[in-house]
């Protein structure tokens, strides 16, 4: 969790929730494992990571696999990730047929956070509503 110091010298830091909004341009320049590391490092720091343009299915698969290897049940308390994107983004037109039709773009805006801190309240094609809790 990010700490924000006060103007008078920072003796009593206030706690906030850091949100990293990562542009599609920045993600485009990264290899798969670099993207996954960027996401998971943020989540390990208790940040909420918002991707302007989501991951490809293969990258999602590796993100799940990598997430599982980093859960240590009696370790640092990391229990995995919560991930949400608009319905129809992944697995919709981005599957085999989508690529056949020339649509090779990743899915839509994606929100990722620590599983024990983020809870989805509502999701539809136009709105993702999440509750982010402090530790």
């Amino acid at each position, binding site marked *: 969790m990010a700490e924000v110091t006060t103007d008078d010298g920072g003796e009593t830091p206030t706690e906030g929730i850091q949100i990293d909004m990562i542009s599609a341009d920045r993600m485009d320049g990264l290899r798969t494992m670099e993207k996954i590391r960027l996401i998971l490092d943020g989540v390990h720091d208790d940040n909420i990571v918002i991707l302007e343009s989501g991951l490809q299915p293969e990258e999602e698969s590796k993100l799940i696999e990598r997430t599982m290897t980093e*859960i240590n049940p009696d370790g640092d308390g990391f229990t995995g*990730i919560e991930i949400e994107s608009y319905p129809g*983004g992944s697995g919709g037109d981005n599957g085999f047929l989508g690529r056949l039709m020339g649509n090779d773009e990743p899915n839509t805006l994606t929100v990722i956070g620590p599983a024990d801190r983020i809870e989805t309240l509502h999701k539809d094609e136009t709105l993702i509503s999440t509750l982010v809790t402090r530790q």
Partner: protein
Amino acid sequence: MGILTDLRSSISRATSSLFTGGEPKRIGIYGPPNAGKTTLANRIARDWTGDAVGPESHVPHETRRARRKENVEIKRNGKSVTIDVVDTPGVTTKVDYKEFLEHDIEKEDAVRRSREATEGVAEAMHWLREDVDGVIYVLDATEDPFTQVNTMLVGIIESQDLPVLIFANKIDLDEASVQRVSNAFPQHETVPLSALEGDNMDEVYDKIAEYFG
């Protein structure tokens, strides 16, 4: 959607028909935890080989390793199709050992189960990318199918160009809604069934032979 769906379906079936004879196809049974994957794998294995694949339980993540039942020969309409059934751990993006404590499991055992569950999910993802020739995606028809894990998993399966059948399980329960499942994944065929009660298994085997034969 209709033409595109038909085209996609045709391509999927063409892909499936490209399988060469000889080696049995490995059909992965995927889905979220507690959808009834092992119950289905056991039903198929018992019906055609007499043996089970693994233990079933209402406790999530009971299956923590992918298990394979080899050479399951399914006979339909005078023909036979031989498949290897791969029962996989339920896929999730999170595992918290405290969930197991709610099922009267001691902490030490819960931690061990959690560790094995995470390894199992990672293993299942690896199988999906490398080692299966087709997928049966099992959903609990009493639950909301519009989850991120389901959307991601079906997207991943599609990206691998694997033939896939969606099974809407637990239709013996009053709350089951097959329509809700088929609405969630209209691009794929949805087959209703109760793996526990053995309901609609004739259609299940017809579709397995059609898609994976």
